[in-house]
């Protein structure tokens, strides 16, 4: 099953796709363009991976890391499907990052990779924008680069774990104004989902609602004000976002 969280007529609803429309939990059918999309769940601790695809690491002139390069994100940074993300005027390079987001479904501590999927509730798409101009070499990438307001679109759907046969074999694609600019496969992650859950839970407790953004493949290009950026993952749908000016 897949479900969204939407605002319709002044209230927040859970919604499922039905016949090209959205079916609210009350049973009412509404057109998609009449709702505002929220992130499909409220992220608790949010992890993101840097350099987790060998081709993207070499694109940025880095060697693939020996240990997962993990950073954290705050709740201010998430925005739903069809949301807007600001591009500051002084920035010369802002890039999208299409990423598979893995949502944790129960308390996890010292989990072995063989058991890791027992702790997964589902998946969604994340677009983990970065602003290269703001990179500094302290706890890099830092929050000014990765935790700006509304700079991490998430959605549209929370897709149940069992609906995705092999999350380690999904095509990822990004389109900027309809043109394909990024293409990869989750097959090429350096640290896959089971390894990441094993790694993180080896030193801290994960809980329901925590989420892991698993990194992005090669093909991150600069985007500008007015661009429509669609990040797509096989089986999870398409997440749309528009770049606006920050004044």
């Amino acid at each position, binding site marked *: 099953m897949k479900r969204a969280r939407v605002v319709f007529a002044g209230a927040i609803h859970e919604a499922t796709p039905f016949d090209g429309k959205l079916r609210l939990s009350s049973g009412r059918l509404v057109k998609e363009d009449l709702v505002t999309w929220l992130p499909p769940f409220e992220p608790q601790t949010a992890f993101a991976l840097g350099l987790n695809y060998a081709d993207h690491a070499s694109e940025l002139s880095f060697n693939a890391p020996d240990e997962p390069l993990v950073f954290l994100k705050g709740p201010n*940074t998430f925005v739903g499907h069809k949301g807007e993300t600001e591009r500051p005027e002084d920035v010369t390079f802002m890039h999208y990052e299409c990423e598979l987001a893995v949502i944790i479904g129960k308390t996890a*501590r010292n989990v072995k990779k063989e058991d890791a999927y027992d702790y997964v509730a589902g998946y969604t798409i994340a677009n983990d924008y970065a602003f290269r101009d703001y990179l500094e070499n*302290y*706890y890099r990438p830092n929050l000014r680069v990765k935790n700006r307001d509304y700079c991490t679109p998430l959605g549209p759907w929370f897709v149940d774990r069992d609906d995705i046969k092999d999350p380690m074999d999904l095509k990822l694609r990004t389109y900027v104004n309809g043109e394909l600019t990024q293409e990869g496969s989750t097959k090429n992650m350096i640290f896959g989902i089971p390894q990441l859950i094993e790694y993180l839970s080896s030193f*801290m407790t994960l809980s329901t609602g925590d989420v892991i953004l698993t990194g992005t493949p090669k093909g991150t290009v600069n985007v500008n004000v007015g661009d429509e950026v669609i990040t797509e993952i096989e089986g999870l749908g398409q997440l749309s976002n528009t770049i606006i000016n920050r004044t």
Partner: protein
Amino acid sequence: MKKVWFKPSGHREAIVASFDQAASSLMYEGIRRNIEELQYDTIVSGTVYGTLLNFKGALAKMGESTYQEPYNKPPQAPILYIKPRNTLTSHHQPIPLPKDVDQLQIGPTLGVVIGRTASRVKKHEAHHYITGYTIANDVTVPHDSVFRPAVKHRARDGFCPIGPWIVEKESLDSPDHLSIRAWVNGKLVLENTTKNLLRSVGELLEDVTEFMTLRKGDTLLVGVPEEAPLVKANDVVRIHIDGVGLLENTIIHEFEVSQKGSDRS
């Protein structure tokens, strides 16, 4: 007497009390209680953000290395990190010593608790966005390199005792000249003051909210002073900040900490 908010163990909501520093007591619901008689739950409700290298002495200690690889130049913007919910704990809760390390570095610091949505705040109006102040022990596994985010060092379970209460901002003249002291097993091991912050509380709020919004209940830790001491199993760490209160925790081997203590959310 100062107005504070605290959460007695088991209470769903924070309650208001009067803190009498001289008498070491909290007065609430008409009863005076010694502060050590009470059990406290974590008082902060939002996201806790830490700040790296915000004490002048901490940055100075890096010396010329900030001009060398991998840093290349001194930091320009505030360097932040998140202390996620699994790290948050309270007064008298054990700090688990993970089995893969034998020493921890404590991090006595002031927590600035946000009272309303703070975006693009100017330093002279920062106090309007603050509810009050608290104490945190921003514990970390010692690490020399600050090039990559230190999640594995800073985000272990129970690595952020905070509280025991939030003292209302009106009870302090200014957050920018508070003395911070720490004792390990009764011995004074650290003494510093928020006068030595690189970015004062107002400046830090201005520079952080320039790029990210802080929400009601979020807490911004102002930074850890240089020479923060190392501790080992069974050490008792006590932190005192003038006018704010005190926070005490004991380092306990992870395997000795009950599931309840290590699995708080």
